[in-house]
């Protein structure tokens, strides 16, 4: 399904990104040990030497590189001396929540965004123009800014939603209550991006001859859109939507910070403030791998959905 060339590209991309992660702390100014452990860690001189040996920093770079790969393949992303845990455990814990926040929102945003975007691109009306204006404003505003305003108005002022966190009691309903507003913000954010892309795509597709022919067959208005144009407009942008996955995920990080949620966003934010480099790097690595996988998935989906590719 996936052409050899594409597969090679994905493999190279993954290899390079993981390698990048190896070289960043070692090529940055400062002591690589500090760059690997993070700063503000109280260590005695003897433990520094011991750690240096344990982390293999006294060995040649090539050997370190091999060891690094060995660790990666065993999902060993190092240890956070700030949080006193394995980075992989930390990320596993936090990523669950981030995905709970962002995946439903992304799916929702993708469905609503493409549907509304397709309709807006299909036919213009006063209502749809207002809608486009509204969505465009969201598209242009930084996600954290909108979230701040929503938090202020709906949670601070109106008290409709909890102020922080993923849960307080831990019951399903409680989690849903906590997740609602940030999820809605995420949905809006992802919706606005999908909306703009889909609108543009439909705008291009609707002038195509097959759409006119569908009209000539007697299809009425949005029947043409949903029976013919929608899928055609969606196909070429599937990969585009997947590329946006990374961006939307980054948006989730900011939304988490605004809503004080202990997911990947706050993990990265805290790691940033305390210069907890292993956590920063590990998070970056995992997010990148997720984005690359999303792209791979989109490629596969595309080649499955598009008969022109499938039958080649």
């Amino acid at each position, binding site marked *: 399904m996936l052409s050899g060339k594409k597969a090679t590209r994905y493999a190279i991309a993954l290899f390079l990104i993981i390698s990048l992660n190896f070289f960043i702390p070692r090529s940055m100014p400062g002591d690589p040990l500090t760059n690997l452990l993070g700063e503000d860690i109280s260590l005695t001189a003897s433990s520094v030497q011991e750690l240096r040996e344990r982390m293999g920093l006294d060995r040649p770079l090539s050997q370190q590189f091999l060891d690094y790969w060995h660790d990666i393949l065993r999902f060993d992303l190092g240890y956070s001396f700030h949080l006193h845990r394995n980075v992989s455990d930390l990320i596993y814990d936090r990523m669950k929540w981030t995905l709970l926040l962002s995946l439903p929102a992304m799916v929702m945003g993708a469905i609503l965004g493409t549907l509304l975007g397709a309709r807006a691109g299909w036919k213009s009306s006063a209502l749809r123009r207002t809608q486009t204006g509204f969505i465009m404003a969201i598209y242009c505003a930084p996600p954290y800014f909108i979230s701040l305003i929503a938090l202020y108005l709906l949670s601070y002022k109106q008290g409709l939603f909890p102020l922080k966190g993923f849960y307080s009691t831990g019951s399903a309903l409680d989690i849903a209550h906590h997740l609602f507003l940030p999820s809605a913000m995420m949905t809006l954010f992802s919706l606005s991006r999908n909306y703009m892309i889909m609108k543009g795509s439909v705008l291009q597709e609707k002038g*195509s001859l097959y759409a006119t*022919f569908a*009209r*000539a*067959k*007697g299809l009425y208005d949005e029947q043409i859109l949903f*029976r013919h144009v929608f899928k*055609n407009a969606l196909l070429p942008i599937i990969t585009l939507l997947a590329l946006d996955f990374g961006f939307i995920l980054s948006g989730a990080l900011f939304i988490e910070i605004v809503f004080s949620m202990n997911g990947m966003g706050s993990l990265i934010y805290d790691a940033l403030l305390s210069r907890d480099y292993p956590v920063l790097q590990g998070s970056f690595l995992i997010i990148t791998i997720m984005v690359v996988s999303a792209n791979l998935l989109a490629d596969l989906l595309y080649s499955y959905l598009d*008969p022109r590719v499938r039958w080649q």
Partner: protein
Amino acid sequence: MNRHLPSSSYFRPLLCIDEMYVSFDTSLGRVKAAQNICLELHERETLAIVGETGCGKSVIASAILQLLPSNASVKGKAIFLGRDLLSLGEREMADIRGQEIAIIFQNPSLSLNPIMKVAEQVAEPLQIHRRLPRHRAISKAEDMLSRFKLGDKASPVMYPFQLSGGMNQRVMIATSMILSPKILIADEPSKGLDQSLARQVMKELAGIKDEIGASLLLITHDLLLAKEVSDRIAVMYCGEIVEAGSSAEIFDEPLHPYTKALLNCLPEMGFKPIPGSSPSMIDPPEGCRFYPRCRERLDRCLLSPKMIKVESDDGDREVRCWLY
């Protein structure tokens, strides 16, 4: 192949286009794509509109079915069975399209949905207008396709990109014919096909048209094709109909200098091109539009000529020229 039917006035007019104007608003200005078009299409007849590329003939076809983009404005009337098509709402129009009047576009490969199976596309009018369930519509569509020699097992489950241009053209024709419409509009059906294939497709089209008793409005730049299949011909130049009459008469005795020049372009007449180039449709020449290229121009040609009736054997002979 010229079929000699009794005079077309024999039949009732089915579609009557009366003083139709079509223009497009663009950033460069108003494009006057069709001016003062008056045409009648009779029952069971084949009417060909011929002209150079860009003369506005395709616009007429699309205007009748209200298929033009939103920047187009259409004035005039197109009476079909007592109803003015141009003033119908989209909903009513949708009922007519495909059921009463069907159209075949010039570019079959692009007119078919690239990611939908051929049989499903053919079946679509049945589902829309007749509300047939999907599987029955598809089996009917497969029957229809087999009449166009596309019935071998593979074809109905295939996608347009797996078929040749000629095969796709047949798929289009099958789609348009499946509800036995009263009028069939064929917009350059032979375009992009080689000569023999074009003839064959045309033959099949004509055959089916006769079988279901439809009228055919053929839009083409191919004079020979028009001569072969049509009962009457209307010649268009720069948005206007300059000459109309039975196809035999137009060929035997062209009246308008443009028609004559066109005929001279044909290979058998020696490939003589028309000097000059097509005028702009935004800012057409004053008076007769063919004036700048005309070999027989007179001073009064700077005034717009009217369509005038000319005596002929068949009756309906018209020309827009000061020479007559």
